C-alpha cells in the first residue's frame, strides 16, 4: 500500500483546489479589512495569525503535506521549531539587553 502512494502520490481533485483557493482569497479579504479598521497593536497579531492560517492551507493541500509520510512532517516541524528558537532568542535579547 505504502509503495503505491510513494510512486503515484495522492490525486487531489480540482474542486478541492478551487475550495482552498476560495478560502485563501477570503482570508486575504479579512486581512485587508482588518488592517483598515485600525486595531492598534492587534493588527500585526491578527495579520500574522491569518498569514499562518493561509500557510497551513498552502502547505497541507497545495504542497500535499497531509498526504506525505511522517518523515516530511517531522522535517517541517524541525524547520519551524528552529525558526521559532531564532525568533525567541532574538527578542529575548532585545527585551532584556536594551
Amino acid at each position, binding site marked *: 500500500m505504502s509503495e503505491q502512494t510513494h510512486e503515484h502520490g495522492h490525486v487531489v481533485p480540482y474542486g478541492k483546489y478551487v475550495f482552498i483557493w476560495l478560502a485563501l*482569497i477570503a482570508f*486575504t479579504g479579512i486581512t*485587508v479589512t482588518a488592517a483598515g479598521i485600525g486595531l492598534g497593536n492587534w493588527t500585526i497579531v491578527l495579520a500574522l495569525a491569518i498569514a499562518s492560517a493561509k500557510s497551513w492551507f*498552502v502547505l497541507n493541500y*497545495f504542497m500535499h503535506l497531509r498526504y506525505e509520510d511522517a518523515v516530511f512532517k517531522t*522535517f517541517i516541524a524541525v524547520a519551524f521549531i528552529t525558526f521559532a528558537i531564532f525568533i525567541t532568542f532574538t527578542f529575548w535579547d532585545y527585551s532584556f539587553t536594551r
Partner: protein
Amino acid sequence: MSSSAHTAVHHVHRDDYGSRMGMWLFLFTELILFGGLFIVYAVYRFVHQQEFHLAAQELNTVVGLLNTVILLTSSMTAAMAVTAIQKGNVRFAKGLLWVTVLFAGAFMLNKYFEWSAKIHHGIYPGSPDLLAKPEGEILYFGLYYVMTGLHALHVIIGVVFFLFILRQIGQGKVTPTSYVRLENSALYWHLVDLIWIFLFPLFYLIH
C-alpha cells in the same frame, strides 16, 4: 510490491519519494534564508515602530493586493497541473502551466510598475531623498527592496523551472507515470506563494 504493476519504466532507476524529500530539504534552506530577513525586519520594526508605519503609507495597497490574488491563483493552477498529469491529461497540464507562467509575468509587470513609481519618486536604496529621511524609514525601504527583490528573483527562477518542465513534457521526459520534476517545480512555486503571504501584510498593511 504493487509498484511493478504501476511503473512501466521499472528498470529505470528512480526514486520519486527521495526526490520530493530532497526538494523539501532544499525548501527549508529557503525558509531559513527568508527567515533571517524576517527576523531582521521584526527587530527593526520593533525598534522603529512609528517610522515603519509612516514609511508603509508610501506603498500602494491595491498593487500589493492584486499581486497577492495573482500569486494565490497561480499556486492553484500549478497544483492543478500536477492533478492533470496524474490523471493522464497532458494537454491540460501544459495549459495550466502556461497559465501559471502568465500569472507570474503579470506579477512581475506589477512589480515593475510599482518599483518604477518608487524610483521615480526618488525612493531607492542610497537615493538622496531616502537618505534625508529618518533612520527607521531608510531601514524599511532597504528591507522592502531586498525582501521583495529576493522574492521577485524567486518568481523568475520559478518561471524558468516551469518553462523547463514544459519542454520536458514536449520531449516525453515528464509523463503521467513520471512527473516528480513537475511536482518539485510546483513545490518551489508554492514556497514563493508562502513567502508572499507574509511579505504582503508586513509591508503593505501596516496602518
